[in-house]
Structure formats: structure tokens, C-alpha cells
């Protein structure tokens, strides 16, 4: 008998169904305090949480302001040292602010081997959702240029619209795209393994910058 069957048989022999209470899923609005409702609430809570977590939030009135903000964030990095996967938003930004293109590495880098990929300074990605309650960003391999772009470079820049804000995790998990990899990012990488002292940038990005665009296209 295989180990699979042995384990399953052993479990089956003593399984007892229907003894405990049935579990019902409680919505986040009933579980948690600070549950945001209005758009203003969502934005306020998201920015408060992200700042507490040492993330950087830049609010942009429109796409052209967002393009300026992006350029200000990346202009000090060496040429071709940023890598972006933000279809839709980035093309528009590059039109409004052509200097952005000078910082960007070629998109074929996304599939480069890891030693080459590790030389990238900043990863620029889209997001699927922004979660107000916890100040989190949800992204997937499908929307964020694969798995490495948002974790291997020391800086992660997220380009998103205010309309992508949701109150809590339960709403976001209902509508995720088909992808092999989904990650919920809550602030820049951190550790407290040495005497419980907080240090940012343990292995993932030291800086997390969110550029949030008010008027969605």
C-alpha cells in the first residue's frame, strides 16, 4: 500500500463527521474594527496604514502629475536600471513624460536569468487591488510582470488607481485573476529577528512607493 493510501485510510477509519458546529464565513465588516465604507474613508485609512508601515504614498491628481511623480522617484537611479511592467499606465506616462523611458531597461529583461535580473534597482508594477484596512497591495504574476519584479529589486514602485481600493481582504480575494502566484504586500520588507528591533529591507524591497492616481482613465 502506498503512503498516500496508508495515511488516507488511517484518517478515514477514525473520521467523524457532523459533530461540531457548522462553520459559517463571517464577513470582514463584522470581524474587524475600523471598517471603511466611503471612498474618502478608504483612501484615508489606506494612506494612514501605509505610512505606519514605512511605505511611501504619493497621491497624484491625474496621469500627468503621476508621470512627474514617477520621474521624480526614479530620476536619481542610473539609466536603464529600472524595469517596468505596468501595461496601460506606463505607456501613457511615458508619452506625457518622455524622460521616464531613459531610466527603463528593456522589457525583455523580465525573462532574464536571475543573476542578470538582480542588477535592477527598481521594479515598477501594476496592482490588482489595494486593501484599505491593512494598507496592503495585492498583485499577481499576471499583472505584476511575474514573481521577481516586485521582490528582487531594492525598490518597488506600484502604479495604481484610487478605484482599485477595496475595504478589506475578503472583497479582494473574490475577484483575483488566474495566476500561479498572488501576493499580498503590506509595507516594505522587514525583520525583527535581532532582539526584536525593526529593520526594513531584510531580503525584499527596502522602499515601497505607491503612486495613487485620482482620476482613473
Amino acid at each position, binding site marked *: 500500500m*502506498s*503512503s498516500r493510501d*496508508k*495515511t*488516507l485510510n488511517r*484518517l*478515514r477509519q*477514525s*473520521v*467523524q463527521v457532523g*459533530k*461540531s*458546529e*457548522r*462553520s459559517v*464565513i*463571517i464577513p470582514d465588516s*463584522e*470581524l*474587524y*474594527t*475600523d471598517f471603511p465604507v466611503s471612498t474618502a474613508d478608504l483612501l484615508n485609512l489606506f494612506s494612514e496604514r501605509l505610512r505606519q508601515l514605512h511605505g511611501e504614498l504619493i497621491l497624484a491628481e491625474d496621469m500627468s502629475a503621476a508621470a512627474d511623480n514617477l520621474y521624480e522617484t526614479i530620476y536619481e537611479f542610473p539609466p536603464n536600471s529600472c524595469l517596468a511592467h505596468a501595461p496601460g499606465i506606463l505607456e501613457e506616462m511615458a508619452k506625457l513624460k518622455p524622460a521616464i523611458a531613459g531610466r527603463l531597461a528593456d522589457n525583455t529583461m*523580465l*525573462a532574464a*536569468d*536571475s*543573476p542578470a*535580473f*538582480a542588477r535592477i534597482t527598481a521594479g515598477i508594477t501594476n496592482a490588482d487591488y489595494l486593501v484599505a484596512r*491593512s494598507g496592503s497591495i495585492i498583485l499577481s*504574476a499576471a499583472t505584476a510582470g*511575474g*514573481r*521577481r519584479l516586485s*521582490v*528582487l529589486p531594492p525598490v518597488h514602485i506600484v502604479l495604481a488607481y484610487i478605484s482599485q481600493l477595496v475595504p478589506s*481582504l*475578503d472583497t479582494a*480575494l473574490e475577484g483575483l485573476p488566474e*495566476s*500561479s*502566484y*498572488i*501576493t*499580498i*504586500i*503590506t509595507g516594505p520588507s*522587514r*525583520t*525583527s*529577528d*535581532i*532582539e*526584536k*528591533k525593526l529593520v526594513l*529591507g*531584510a*531580503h*525584499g*524591497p527596502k522602499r515601497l512607493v505607491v503612486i495613487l492616481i485620482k482620476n482613473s482613465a
Partner: protein
Amino acid sequence: MSTFSRFLRKSAAKAEDQTHLLKILKAVSTHDSKVEAMKNLQFKDWESARKQAATIKNHVLENLPGFLEQFEKCITERGAEVLWAGNGIEAQNYFLEICRRHHVRKVIKSKSMTTEEISLNETIESAGMQVWESDLGELIVQLAGEKPYHIVTPAMHKNTAEIAELFHDKLGVPITESAEELTMAARTYLRDAYVTADIGVTGANFLIAREGAVVLTENEGNARLTMSCPPVHVVIAGIEKILPSMDSLPLFLPLLATSGTGQQITCYNTIIRGPRRNGEVDGPQKLYIILLDNGRSDLYRKERFRESLRCIRCGACLNACPVYRTIGGHTYQTTYQGPIGSVITPHLKPMGEWQHLSYASSLCAACTSVCPVKIDLHTLLLENRWEACANHQTGMLWRFGLKFWAFFFSKRSRLNFFRRIGRIKLPIIRPFLPHGLRKRVPQIPAKTFSTLWKEYEQS
């Protein structure tokens, strides 16, 4: 020396060690205040949240075989390969076979207690491969040649100065007092390992049955790198890690973070639904999931102990336990320390050798009161004692000691005889009393309670 004697000797030594005590108290008290604050800050009602979590986990246990098959089916359809390991040796062999198949020489690992349980690092090294622990705490204990001190905070017992010295010796880093500089040294040291490793190994915090997914929760980003860069990803997870569906995550992720580290939610929570898919630019081409039984199905069969499989390994019971705080993590000599370790270890390993852990508790129930899935830990410790006695696994000394005790205590005159001896000969019998020599033993009074009572009634 038996495991039990070693345990006694080590606990006596640690209990006296003031520096150790101060380090642990400092870590635990920082942790405690954060956890308590977050419970109230985040949850409308912590008690009902943990009750809900326990209910969901009970539902999982009642349907465990079905959920495991559902998980296997869903994730296999998405291109993963699921392997079932009955015990640690089988899991090691699966892993070595995978390494041979993919010509692996360098292994990068993110923190996983399950791999500690099956001694994976030793297996990898004796097969001639290199292995890097990537979690900062795990890296520290790996470099020091030690085992994790705590299931959540592996290097809790080391202060900055000790870590600085270790990094200076092993990594050639200049001595520093800054936790930041030490963390950056670890970051630099491991960068190369991530991008050149042939295989990445992780555990799992949750396995999702309905959608077929593996969920990993962490703060540093090392797990994300481990499952993003290398061409092969191996997950090693206990069969009890199941949750019914993604619907449970909005409760369990904040619950685990609050109990484990006092965070609202950990920095990175990652859901893996298979290897790289067509059209995706990176990620491993192969995903293997080794489901580990290793005694869990035996524990499952003991109905009274089944609830211990609800555990989500948050470490709250360790931090709360006055015994853990005093004797420290290494003294247990087990993969899982503290109350939960004392409950499950005697069932996963030979009961006779490990049953003494059930006595490493004052039964104060601090563990039970903090458990986020409401495991009745202190009662299970009592149940363990009962089971060990019933199966005569308690050892000669214990059995004869109890017989001796029963003989004297079953008759008033014998007890009085013992009292008389005790009063005169206390200094002689003192070393044989099980209190340890440092503890003060009260003098035996001149008159017994019953004598006093009689006198009182007569007066």
C-alpha cells in the same frame, strides 16, 4: 544519559542562568504588549474570532481525508506534483530523488519547521549539496550550528553582540552594535544564493483545499525570493495545514499575524497555485508538494488529542508559558517547543522517551488562554500524563515512588511515622527530595493538622 535526565540537567542549568532569563524576558515582554494591543486594535471581539477559527479547523479535521484529496486534485491539475510521505525518511528520500532528477547542487530554504522535523539540512549536506537558510533568524542558528530556539523567532536567545561576533567569525563582517548593519550583512550574503540556487524549499502555513493553493506568510521576503528565483520549488507541509477555501484567509492571516508577532497582517502573504504557467515570464518550472504524515494520522486517531492538529504554529503558547520562559527553547530538545511541543511530541516520537515533557508545566493554563484556535493545551498535557501512566511508560522510579507514596499516605499512622522521621532526619533525606537543591523546603511542623484539629475540638 536518557532524554529525561538531559532535560532535567539542562532545565536546572537554564533556570539559574540570569543572562538567559533577562534576554528571554525582554523579547517576550516586547512581544506580549504588541500582541495584546493588536488584538484590541484590530478585532471587534478577539474571543469570537478565535472561536470562529477553531470551528473552521474542526470542520477541516472532520473532513480531512476528503479535503486532502481535493487539494491534491486541484493543484495537480495546475501542474504541481504531490508526493505523500508516511515518515521523515520517506520525505528525505523524495527530496533527494527530486535533487537527482534536477541535478541540484545548491539549495535555498525559507523558514520551515516541517523541514526541521525531518532534519532536511543534515540530509542535504550528507548528500554533498550546499544549503542556505534564508530567514535571518534561521541563518543565525544555522551559522551557529544550533537548532531553532523558538518556532517563530529562531534566534530569540541571541543578543546583538553575540550575533555580531558570529557574523564576524563566519561571514567576515566587521563587529557592529547595529541590528540594521547585521541585517544588511545577511542580505548581501544571501543575494547570490537566491539567484544561483538550483532549488528552493519552503514549508506552508496553509494548504487550501477548494482552490488548490499553498499559502506562505513571512516578513522578510526570503520565502518570496525562494519560490520566485530557482527553477524548482519544493513545498514540505504537514497534512494538518489544510483550510477549506480561500474564504478562510481573511480571518486566518490576521489571526496568525496577531498571535504570532502582534502585527495586523504580516508583510508578505503569498498564494501559490502551481508552477509557472504559460505566458508567465518567470517562476519555477516544477512545483513539488511533499505532504508529510510522520505520526500525524496516529495523533488524528486518538480522538482526545485530535484537536492539537488545529495548531497553526503561531508560537503564542511558547511566549505565554512560564516554564518555556524559564528553561528556554533548546532544553526541550524537540522540533516544537513549549506547551504545543510537549503535547504533540510524545505522540509523534516514542511516548516512553518523551512523556516527561507533559510534566514541564504548572498547568496554569496560560497557553490555553492565548491559543488562537482554542486548543485545550493544559488539559491535553494532563491527558498525556494519564496515557503514559496507563501504558506503563513512566519509568521504574516514578512507579515505585508512587507506590511508596501510596503506602505511606494511605494510613494515618504510617504518615505520622514518616513525619517523625522527616522532622528529625530532614537534612539527611533532603538531597533525595525531587525539589532540586536550590529550593527551600519548609520545615515539617511539630504537630500534624489532625492533631491540631483534635486539640481544637476538645478545647
